[in-house]
Every structure is written in C-alpha cells, then in structure tokens.
C-alpha cells in the first residue's frame, strides 16, 4: 500500500564561509550548494506492517517520512500511499494518516488535552459515537485517567507524550508515521509508548513507520528495517538478517571463579575491551566469536577454563549500526 520509486529530495543550501567580511559579502552575493537529503529510494510496504527506518543523523529518514506524509514535495520520483499521492494533500488522504513528531507537540498549550481532542474530532470529522469509543479505548491503553482535564502546560513530559499520542489517534489513522517518538522520555515511559504502539497496530491493523535512535524501539517493534544512509537505501529486510550480515558474531561473556589471564582466551575469538589492556588477569571476559564457531568455543571454554557463568548474546544493536554507518562513511 506504500510504494516509493526513485524518490529524491534536493535542497539548495546557502553556504557561507566564516568571518565578518564574508558575512557582509553574502548580503550581495550568495553561493548555493545542492544537498541531496533523499537520493533515489525504492521500497514497498504492505498494510499492517511495522517498519523501522534506521540511519545516522542527517541520513534522510525524517525527510522521507515527511515526503510520505505530504509535508514536503519530492524533487523527483513517485510516492503512493494507499493509492493517494501524498503531495496533493487530499482531505481523504490526510484523514487516513498521522505523523507524530517527538519533541514537538500539537496539543494546545494552555488548554486541557481534552480540548485538543475535541478540536481534532471536528477537523477530522469523526462521528461522535466513534469518537467516544476511540477515546475510551485510548484512555485505557495509555492510562490517561484525569490527565486529559488538566492544562497541557501542567503535565510532565511523559504525560504530555501520552496525551499527544491520544490526540494523534482521534481519527484512527490507518497509517502512522512516528518520528523519534520516544526521544527524551524515561525508560518506563519509552516502554509504555512502545507497548501502546504495538497494541494499536495489532488492534487496528494500522501500518507503522518508525524512526528512532533507540535501538530498543526498533528491536521491540519492527521486524523489518530500512536503513538509510546519505539519502540512499542501504538495506531493506529483516532486522535479524541485517545483524547477521554486518556482524555475524555472537558475543560470549565468560565469568570465572578465579581471575584468568587474557592470553588464555585469545585464541577463541576477538576480545571485547573497554579501554587499554591492563595485562592483569580478569574475572570476566567478553569475546566476539563468529556464529559458526560458537559451539566449539563454548565447549572448549567450559572444558579448559574455570567458568562460573557463560552467556551467549547477539552483539548490541548500537555497535552493529555504528559499524554499518562507519562502512558507509568509508565507501
């Protein structure tokens, strides 16, 4: 239902070298540079899917999202969402989607969230009965209670975010774009938001596109990821596969019953270090081992070393991503 082909978005940015003289000259003559925020992207997303957009800062994720929402016009390429062309911003289209921007809010600041809900109801033309039903469900799912009756400015950041989500979903959009929805929230609030988003998707079958810097978000919510770097699509597929492709390692963490010198484990795999090797024996050592070699390494470690505890994990997603982007930089 979302089809994107050859999508490009270029900006002309005015460049100015530093210094007062240059600043003055820029009054009369300006140099412009073209920046390709999005540079030829293709993908298809089916209804009900949950997809995560990953990429370093400035990669073009938010721009792509805004292009899908119709807020920006593409420089070239085709975009179609549920048969609509977003750039035309037809009323029918806008009633089907919603964009949630982390850190920015649409709630009226001095009035209670309930007023914003009412306003949205009028704007989106939601029948009264459906509205009451939707708000009841959302209130339950998000645990809003009496929050909606207090002026927005008196709510904490987490409470505001919950109400913001409720306001965004008054019209039960079928397509939900989330741009860094959990940014700045504390850990428990992040979990609440994630859980809610997942339940909304399951309950209403809404299609979800999410951008986030928190790997937790992507891991929990998105079975499929699209990685964008420098405006280009670098990867599109299951998250698991991406991890395997970039870092086909597993991380083995060994905890010993007596300190062990690093040299004893050096042959097993790459030792993961925080800083410089101290040379002294350690109580625990983490190793990155190729997934095919895990069985062998585990068997050997258990037989040869005084292992008290052993864990096998996937390497942290953050590291995988860093490596992916670093490779992008190199190429």
């Amino acid at each position, binding site marked *: 239902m979302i089809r994107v082909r050859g999508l490009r978005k270029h*900006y002309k940015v005015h460049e100015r070298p530093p210094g007062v003289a240059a600043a003055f000259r820029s009054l009369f003559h300006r140099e412009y540079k073209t920046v390709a925020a999005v540079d030829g992207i293709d993908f298809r997303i089916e209804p009900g899917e949950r997809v995560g957009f990953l990429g370093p800062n400035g990669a073009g994720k*938010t*721009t792509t*999202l*805004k292009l899908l*929402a*119709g*807020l*920006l*016009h593409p420089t070239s390429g085709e975009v179609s969402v549920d048969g609509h062309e977003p750039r035309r*911003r037809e*009323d*029918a*289209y*806008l*009633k089907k*989607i*919603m*964009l949630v*921007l982390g850190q*920015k*809010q*649409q709630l*009226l600041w*001095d*009035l209670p969230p309930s*007023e914003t809900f*009412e*306003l*949205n109801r*009028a*704007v*989106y*033309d939601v029948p009264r009965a459906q509205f009451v039903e939707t708000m009841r469900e959302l209130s339950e799912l998000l645990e809003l209670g009496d929050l909606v009756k207090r*002026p927005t400015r008196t709510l904490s950041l987490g409470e505001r975010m919950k109400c913001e989500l409720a306001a965004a979903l008054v019209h039960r959009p079928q397509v939900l774009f989330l*741009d860094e929805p959990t940014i700045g929230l504390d850990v428990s609030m992040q979990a609440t938001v994630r859980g809610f988003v997942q339940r909304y998707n399951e309950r209403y079958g809404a299609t979800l596109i999410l951008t986030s810097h928190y790997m937790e978000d992507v891991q929990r919510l998105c079975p499929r990821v699209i990685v964008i770097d420098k405006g280009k699509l670098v990867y599109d597929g299951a998250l698991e596969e991406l991890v395997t492709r970039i870092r086909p390692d597993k991380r083995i963490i060994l905890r010993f019953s007596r300190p062990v010198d690093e040299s004893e484990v050096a042959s097993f795999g790459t030792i993961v270090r925080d800083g410089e090797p101290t040379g002294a024996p350690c109580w625990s050592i983490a190793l990155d081992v190729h997934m095919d070699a895990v069985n062998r390494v585990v068997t050997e470690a258990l037989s040869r070393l005084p292992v008290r505890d052993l864990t096998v994990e996937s390497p942290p997603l953050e590291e995988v991503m860093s490596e992916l982007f670093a490779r992008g930089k190199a190429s």
Partner: protein
Amino acid sequence: MRYARLLLMQVRASMLLALQYRADFLLDGFVEIFWMVPAIVPLAVVFRVRPHLGEWSFGEALMVVGWFTFLQGVLEGVINPSLVTVVDHIRKGTLDFVLLKPADAQFLVSTARFQPWQCVNVFTAVGIFVWGFVVLGRGPTPADIGVATVAMLAAVVALYSLWILTVSAAFYVVRIDNLSQLFNAIFDAARWPVSVFPRVVRLLFTFVIPLALMTTYPARALLGTLPWATLAGALGGGIIAFTVARIVWKASIARYTSAGG
C-alpha cells in the same frame, strides 16, 4: 458545513483561552480604553490650524478616522491574534501539524485565535461617526448606510488580504520579530483620507496597498459621496486582493521546507 462547525470550535477554544487568564482578560479590557486617544489626536492637531484638509472638512475626516478605528478593532481582535500563531508555529516547527490536518491551512490559521475585547473598538468607531455627523449637522441616509456596509465588507477583505500577504513573508524570512510592526506602520497611513497624499503616494495607496479601499471609500460611502463606479471598483479590488493573497499564501506553503528534521 464542516467548516462552520470548525469555526465554532475555534471560537470556543479562543473564549476558553481568554477566560483562562483572568488577569489578562481584565488588562485587555482596561488597555482598550486608551486606544481611543491616539486615534483622534493627529486629526485634531491638523484641523486645529486648518479648516480643511484638501477637500475634507473636520466632520468628513472624522468618518475616515472612524473607519480606521473600526478596522483596527477587526485587525487586533480577529486578524492579528490568529496570524501571530503562524509566526509562532514557524518558529517552533509545529506548522507541520497544521498542514497535516484535512482542512484548509489558511482557514485553520486565520481562525485560531480571537481577542474578545476588541469589540470595544466597534463602539468607539460608531461614537466617532456620531461625532462627525453632529459636526456636519446632518445624518446619513439609509442608502448611505447600506452602501457603507458593502464598502466595509470590501475593506475588511482588503485588510485581511493585506495581513495574509504580510504573514506569508514569515515563510521567507527566518526571523520575523517585527512583522506586526511593519504592518502597523503601513496601516497607520489609513487614518488619513487618501486624497491628502501627493499623487504618486495616492496611486500607491489605491492600487498597490489598498488603504484607500479600507478607510477612505467606506467614509465617502457614509457621506454619500462614493460614486457607484468606485464602489464597484472597491468590491473588485477586494476580490482581487483576496485572490492575490490566496495565491501568495499557497505559494508560501509550497515553499515551506520543514528543514531541521
């Protein structure tokens, strides 16, 4: 129909907001009283030494000031507060939310906020009209009032369009601290009958920045001296102004890059 309901919702939100801050509510009312003074002083000063300003007598010139006061009320009560929210949205980056809604952005933004106390200006304007007619020693005919009402509609549309153009500048200008000052500066010239200005300026104020449409023509309508042709011209001018403003607005929205995403 939906838009009518939407308008009602926006007005309601504004009222709730106005009543939320009681101190402000009272302050606004209190401050309103003082606005009458600057309205009259310039005219009084000039007419103290001159019985006529061009072809306008004091009583006649009062009509222009009356309309000026009325339009100021419309400007400060209905137009300015809402359009200031555009500026705010652009600064905070929340204009995206307005654009995402399935309703016309210009409508949403124009009806976002009202200032209820400004209706005092309407009464002040009427007071000034009465004063003017007392000075002239006569009253307006019902026909005059009818024509004046039509001229007033054209005036309000022209004022609104001018403001939309000013606010559209907010899209091109990164820091728009003083757009309302700019507008007030230009609008202020409307307190004078347009024929008092030298020819070039008069043409400017009739065809480019239609201040003549806003105060001079309704004043002449009230005095019964507005030719039909000019009235038709005023209406046409209002329509043209509105269309131009709409085109510029849409172009500005199109250009709007929510950069920094």
